[in-house]
């Protein structure tokens, strides 16, 4: 069965069809959940919550986008809920201005070849971003969701989503590239 047939069957209440959709998208959805939350444990909670929400809301899925893209939006929403819950429970400092714990300022631009090591480092740097900034950077720059969709799922304005994106990019840039390595030539 192709995806659209599975979605139609799932919308009619076919659990086996929905389970197949879960199997096909699980690794992708878990990866997003893990990236949005910055840790394994919350990633597990978010992926389960996302699929429960998807099952309850499958009737509203219009099928205009791929099922996996719809899952990205649900996962983003579930992760935002998880972050808010964590903030209430732990009263952790979620200040956007805190500095990453591991700035890795030793990394030169030339060394930032698109290698496995570079990807490891950028993954670590993403994990160190404040959750509010990380969510927007992951959804826009990794998963290429439009600003409007990101804003809607995170419950913020498009302008706020853009501000967070730019702040997140700046922090990643500071974490990954050595400032002052190049002279001001003008």
């Amino acid at each position, binding site marked *: 069965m192709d995806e659209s047939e599975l979605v139609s069957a799932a919308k009619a209440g076919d659990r086996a069809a929905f389970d197949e959709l879960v199997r096909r998208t699980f690794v992708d959805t878990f990866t997003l959940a893990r990236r949005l939350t910055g840790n394994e444990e919350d990633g597990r909670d978010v992926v389960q919550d996302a*699929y429960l929400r998807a099952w309850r809301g499958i009737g509203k899925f219009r099928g205009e986008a791929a099922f996996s893209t719809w899952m990205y939006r649900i996962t983003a929403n579930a992760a935002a809920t998880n972050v808010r819950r964590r903030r209430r429970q732990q009263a952790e400092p979620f200040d956007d201005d805190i500095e990453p714990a591991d700035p890795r300022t030793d990394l030169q631009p030339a060394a930032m070849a698109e290698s496995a090591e570079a990807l490891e480092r950028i993954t670590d740097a993403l994990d160190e971003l404040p959750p509010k900034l990380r969510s927007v950077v992951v959804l826009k720059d990794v998963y290429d969701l439009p600003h409007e969709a990101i804003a809607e799922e995170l419950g913020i304005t498009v302008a706020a989503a853009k501000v967070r994106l730019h702040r997140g*990019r700046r922090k990643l840039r500071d974490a990954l590239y050595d400032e002052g390595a190049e002279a001001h030539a003008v």
Partner: protein
Amino acid sequence: MLCEEVTALLPGMVDGDLDVDPAAVQHVETCLRCQAELARYRRLLRTLALLRTRYAEPTPGLLGDTLAALTDAAEEGARRTLLSGRRLAYAGAIGGTAVAAGATAALLIARSRRRSMRLAG
């Protein structure tokens, strides 16, 4: 514009934000430092996009747990639907009985009044 002012705008300029001040664009065209900084942001975005094809390995058993949680949720939903259906049936039966009792009472009262009027006449 000064480099410091332009630097703050580069995270938006890197993917062609249309709201960027034209003066900042003009500055970048002539400033090697800002061009280099913009190149760093471009490299950052390329590397972030590459993450799209890198997957995290889910914990063993997580898929099974998720499917089991879905089964529980589906059963719970079905149970609630059944319960609300039964509640509706009970409410319908009680309502029907009440209407029938009311009609019977009205009939008896009407008969009793007619009998009283005949006796009085």
